[in-house]
């Protein structure tokens, strides 16, 4: 957006101020993440730039923290745990959240508002309260310190995201399409998988992504509910910072940033593809 010819001095000042503010916000958001990336290649076990690094000399940099990470059993176990818990709770949250959103979008559904509020509450209630509640409850039914416990807890956290994104997609969903499918002879389940599901898929996918990321970087509930066998990446990083301060966690963080970027790219591509398939944008 270039300045128009009739811009006054005031307009011009504001135009540049506005840009400066925008870049400042970007910097504020990105700097802490970006600073980690070069530091993760530090030769020294410090969290600060060494003179060698600042001179950009090769001796200042190394992959030792990445090697450290890859050769560490506890880190590898935490990665496995994070993926097991993340994928399982995402699958559960996506299924439950999609079903809930479908039910809540029907006009004959009673007590919609109340049920919606209840299902969304894990997003609003302070995490520490949910975590404490789950800890006591799960201890009672003996699933504290098990994969099942952590997966169920993360499912509860992830479900609201799926409900919200799928509900948003369903707002634009034409319910006469399912009627049309029925009139053409499709059973309700066939109509769901062939008609409804492909059309609400973008909402389901982005909900699933949010649910996965929620589980993937969640620490409070893991601290309460997980046992030593269910240490996830964030839990491992947390003890990394508290117990032995090693730049390994910087290497892990860098890899996690990379993973997030990749996930976002994949989602965006999927979303575009499905929009094209839905005929919403020109093919």
């Amino acid at each position, binding site marked *: 957006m270039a300045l128009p010819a009739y811009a006054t001095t005031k307009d011009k000042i504001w135009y540049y101020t506005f840009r400066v503010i925008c870049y400042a916000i970007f910097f504020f958001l990105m700097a802490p993440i970006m600073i980690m990336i070069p530091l993760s290649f530090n030769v020294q076990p410090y969290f600060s730039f060494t003179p060698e690094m600042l001179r950009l000399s090769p001796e200042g940099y190394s992959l030792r923290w990445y090697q450290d990470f890859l050769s560490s059993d506890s880190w590898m176990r935490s990665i496995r745990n994070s993926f097991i818990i993340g994928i399982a709770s995402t699958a559960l949250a996506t299924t439950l959240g999609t079903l809930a959103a479908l039910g809540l979008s029907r006009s004959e559904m009673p007590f919609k508002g109340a049920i919606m509020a209840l299902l969304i509450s894990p997003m609003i209630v302070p995490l520490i309260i949910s975590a404490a509640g789950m800890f006591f409850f799960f201890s009672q039914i003996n699933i504290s310190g098990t994969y099942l416990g952590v997966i169920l807890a993360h499912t509860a956290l992830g479900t609201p995201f799926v409900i919200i994104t799928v509900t948003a997609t369903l707002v634009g969903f034409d319910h006469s399409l399912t009627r049309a*499918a029925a009139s053409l002879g499709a059973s309700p389940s066939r109509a769901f998988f062939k008609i409804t599901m492909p059309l609400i898929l973008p909402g389901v996918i982005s909900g699933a992504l949010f649910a996965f990321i929620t589980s993937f970087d969640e620490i409070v509930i893991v601290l309460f509910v997980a046992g030593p066998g269910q240490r996830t990446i964030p839990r491992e990083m947390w003890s990394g910072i508290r117990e032995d301060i090693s730049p390994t966690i910087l290497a892990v963080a860098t890899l996690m940033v990379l993973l997030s970027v990749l996930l976002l790219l994949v989602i965006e591509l999927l979303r575009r593809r499905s929009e094209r398939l839905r005929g919403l944008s020109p093919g």
Partner: protein
Amino acid sequence: MSANGTDGFVVFDKVQKSYDGESLVVKDLNLSVAKGEFLTMLGPSGSGKTTCLMMLAGFETATNGEIMLDGRPINSIPPHKRGIGMVFQNYALFPHMSVGENLSFPLEVRGMGKSVREQKIKRALDMVQMGAFASRRPAQLSGGQQQRIALARALVFEPEVVLMDEPLGALDKQLREHMQFEITRLAHDLGITTVYVTHDQTEALTMSDNVAVFDDGRIQQLAPPDKLYEEPENSFVAQFIGENNTLDGRIKEIRGEHCVVELDNGEMIDARPVNVTKAGERTRVSIRPERVESNPERLHPDAHLIKAEVVEFIYMGDVFRTRLKVAGNENFIMKSRNAPDQVRHKPGSTIEIGWLPKDCRALDMPS
């Protein structure tokens, strides 16, 4: 042609529908549609016509009564097992599928093989002159084209009954008239039983074998279009179908097919008693504007004539439209054909008008 009975192909037998358990949207509906018949349900919004269609399709359940298809009660059969084709108001084409996939859907559901499917799809698309569009997506088609595809999809699995819910509502006038003709032709060529819902009376009159006029959850009249227009059985139908002049009065005397009505200003007119039974009863008479005659030579010698004051004369090309003040009603319209001997009445002048008694129908006085 069908009559009210239980021998039709599609039968509604004493059907009632209530959404809230208190007020009835459909009250005691009895209707029989013969095989191959084109029946239109016509009525204002909220008259229960769409609810009836939805009950037949299976998307709503009848609160009371029985709906039968080919002699079998279908109340407990889910929509997807009824085998009834349906064209929706907004077409309801599946946006993520191409035209060909849309048409293939009902055939795949029925487990048909690829070659059979392709053959049927081609035939259905050719039928609606859309043969070249199988690979397009619905979003790439115009409204009229989407309409044709929706029609082809409802017909491709060869249902015996097709329901149409105001399918032409979204099209412009010219396209609508063209599609009216095409739908009627297809329905008759294929011998399909069609139940068509509309609030457009022109559509109902031009397309149907029979029209059921709905109001207040009941069928007010079920008749072929010409009979419906020329011989409305009550005030609602007379007023709802076509243009209509009304005059209020009281029955003076009834003799068989003929009665004399004393209008509220004391003038006498001839009429045919329709749903009035005895002298002294209040009545509203109804006369079509094109049946009003100002040339006494064309009327029966002893027809009652009535004075009318010309309020407005509108030249419309093929017809003259003269607005008259008759017995206190200032909106009494007379339509006359633009013939060489036709008089163009001057506003302010007083003329005498009359009609054949059979064209003037003494109907109930709406409460």
